[in-house]
């Protein structure tokens, strides 16, 4: 499969004319794009060709489908550098070409049509450079893969599997903090969460959020990057257990 990205001009022109083109963002075909640009191809071919990537939609279990999609996208596009992978032209280009049908079906709720602001938020980068990589429906799949993939594990997607539940929320919460730029810190965090889950403890949204917040708090007096993964994991587990205890007390 060829990869296509939008030219700068095409990207900005599409962004500018969302209102005019709104009706087309609810159609199954992207042929309108070529007509909109008067027959000129708004896409440029990326120099690499990859295996065909099919993204899954499962209305009954989208969480599981998203997990598969993360692995599918990252496994096939692992060769991208971070610089290439933060380029809006690539992801918006793919959303308007190869993954057009996925975008339309994935985001269509109960037969409703897209509003102008939904198109702006879902098809384009509308949340700032960094947050958009965690929110854009295609870009976030790659970046979650990149942030959790570990080739040194027997299952290199072991940490990715943690995002099988509550993906959107957990992805956004964890990676909003600057400390998540250090992959060792992310590894320690997710390993701690997985250990609790494997022990039969439920890691609620509250516990996840508070632990992420806790790490940010202690980063004021500790240089988190200084710790080995296991050292940091012990600190995180201590906090998670404390939160779990409080949660269980409140539930009694």
């Amino acid at each position, binding site marked *: 499969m060829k990869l296509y990205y939008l030219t*700068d001009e095409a990207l900005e*022109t599409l962004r500018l004319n969302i209102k005019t083109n709104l009706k087309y963002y609810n159609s199954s075909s992207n042929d309108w794009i070529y007509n909109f640009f008067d027959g000129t191809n708004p896409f440029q071919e990326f120099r690499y060709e990859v295996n065909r990537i099919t993204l899954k939609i499962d209305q009954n279990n989208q969480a599981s489908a998203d997990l598969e999609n993360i692995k599918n996208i990252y496994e096939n596009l692992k060769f991208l550098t971070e610089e290439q992978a933060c380029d809006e032209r690539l992801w918006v280009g793919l959303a308007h070409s190869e993954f057009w049908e996925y975008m339309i079906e994935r985001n269509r709720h109960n037969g409703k049509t897209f509003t102008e602001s939904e198109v702006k938020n879902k098809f384009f980068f509308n949340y700032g450079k960094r947050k958009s990589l965690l929110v854009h429906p295609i870009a976030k799949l790659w970046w979650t893969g990149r942030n959790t993939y570990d080739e040194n594990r027997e299952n290199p997607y072991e940490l990715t599997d943690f995002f099988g539940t509550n993906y959107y929320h957990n992805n956004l919460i964890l990676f909003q903090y600057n400390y998540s*730029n250090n992959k060792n810190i992310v590894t320690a965090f997710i390993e701690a969460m997985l250990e609790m889950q494997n022990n039969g403890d439920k890691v609620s949204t509250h516990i996840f959020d508070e632990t992420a917040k806790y790490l940010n708090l202690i980063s*004021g007096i500790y*240089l988190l990057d200084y710790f080995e993964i296991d050292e940091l994991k012990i600190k995180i587990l201590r906090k998670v257990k404390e939160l779990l205890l409080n949660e269980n007390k409140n539930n009694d």
Partner: protein
Amino acid sequence: MNTKNRHFPYPILREYSDDYINSYFKTEIKIKEDINSFIFEFNSELNDETITNLINKEKAEIVYQIECPQLFFRYIIKTRSLEIEFAIDSKKLNGSVKVSSYIVAKDDIDDYTNINFHTDFEDSKFKLFRGNIIALGNQYKLIINKNLEKLSQNDSIFLIVRDDSSERSAIKIDTDNDKIKIILNNEDFKNYNILSKRIDLLPSMHAMIIYPALLQVLEKIRTSNIQEYEDMKWFNVITYIINKSDYEILEYIEKYGTEVLAQKLLDFPINRALKSLVSIGEDEE
């Protein structure tokens, strides 16, 4: 991590704080570009005997942190040496980069005290844990931009796009993304497309369209908070060019004015346009 206004539960040696008297920890950073990497040169000065002894006894270390949030990159370099050079793959850095320096406890330190503590902490002892920050050096924020090009040779920071919504709307400028968008209505865009294919008319295009746009942008910079634009590629290209003259952008605008700056950045577009039109006229004769 921005540390200037943070409060700590024990004294930390840092600028803008009187936790310590007569001590300092400063770092100077230089960056050189190599073929595939950026070379960071760190040169630190530490003026505190107790902390120096901790480092020499391997109970503390100097740590440099390089962070590029846009590319989810963060890396640390640990050392006991006050001078060190380190290379980072250039693919890992682009846009805004923060560089911080720390002195960190390598092991737990019982009863940490220092003769340079402020009198408020005189005779106080603190338990420090491995990983605790003992000193904070300067923080640097820099912008790394690759493939910077001169404005007059390649209008790569400008993008001319069409707005289908109204046939007779006025030209608009949008500075919210990496390129400065010049938005034309349908008719103007069609005509621009026809004329821009003629190389002899390019100077006139610069004068009529790019120059007024750039002037408006510089006026915006002059009257707004420039931090709004620091992450934008177009802003960093303009700043990079001006910095070659040893001026900061606002200093240059203050001294010479926005109209002079706009003309210099575009290599005197009015002059070039007039010359090219005269030349076209002569050819037609």
